[in-house]
């Protein structure tokens, strides 16, 4: 149980989380489809959670602080996914499109 953490430095977890975050960032900025953007946001939230859990485990594993906040992130992610997808479906009903660039009524 304790083996893994004693053999792997904390920075490895942080670098993996950073890479996952950057991948998600790229997805949010570059994808056209709103659902795909939402999926990328979920990846970014996961990266944040990896960081939270890693810091919890390496710094203060006696208190449940890190896990508790990771669970709150999880809750917010679930709420965000539900509302976001509901918005996307509603937009699709009205505009027949889920391409983020084409939803530009407010520009004019």
């Amino acid at each position, binding site marked *: *149980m304790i*083996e*893994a*953490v*004693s053999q*792997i*430095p*904390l*920075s490895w*977890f942080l*670098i*993996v989380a*950073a*890479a*996952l*975050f*950057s*991948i998600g*960032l*790229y*997805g949010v*900025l*570059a*994808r*056209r*489809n709103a*659902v*795909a953007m939402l999926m990328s946001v*979920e*990846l970014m939230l*996961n990266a944040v*959670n*990896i960081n939270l*859990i*890693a810091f*919890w*485990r*390496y710094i*203060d*594993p*006696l*208190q*449940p602080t890190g*896990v*508790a906040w*990771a*669970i*709150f992130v999880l809750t*917010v*992610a679930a*709420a965000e*996914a*539900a*509302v976001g*997808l*509901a918005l*996307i479906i*509603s937009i699709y009903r009205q505009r027949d499109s889920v391409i*983020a*660039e084409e939803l530009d009524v407010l520009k004019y």
Partner: protein
Amino acid sequence: MQIIFIIVSAVTLLSGIMVVTNRNLFHAALYMMLSFLGVAGLYVLLDAGFMAAAQLLVYIGAISILVIFAIMMTRRLMQTTETPYNSQWVWSGIASVSVFALIVLVITQVTAVLPTDPNAFMAPSAINDAVLYDALSNMVISLGESFVSAEQYVLPFILSSVLLLVALVGAIIVARPDVEENES
């Protein structure tokens, strides 16, 4: 252990890349599940079994299903052969790579000056293996107590339940078809 870590994180990151580059949205959602599974594996390596199970239940069992439902409901545009990217994809690539480089730079700079001992940052009382093992196996209990104790997280806990309720009601209201319009 290090090999397991490298395999798990490689699966996570490669499937993450597939999520943002795959042309077929449904396949992207499948790769997203694989990526979530990899993150759950990382949690197991970090001795957070409860988080790993929660990750499976919430992300794979609920959020991915929701995403797949949304993809199926908006699927008329799925079969298009045009590029999945918008015009700023080059700049986004540069931006995200530079963010990654910046974070890695910070991490390496910081770890270079810190001691290499894995227990270096650990709270002093947690260095004893027996204490640590005990705390980790009773993590679920202390987590549950922290959610309901007034000194710790009872307020965020209640707030998050209110948030879930609001999201539930809001999602239903936003996504339901307009009933009155149809009847008139």
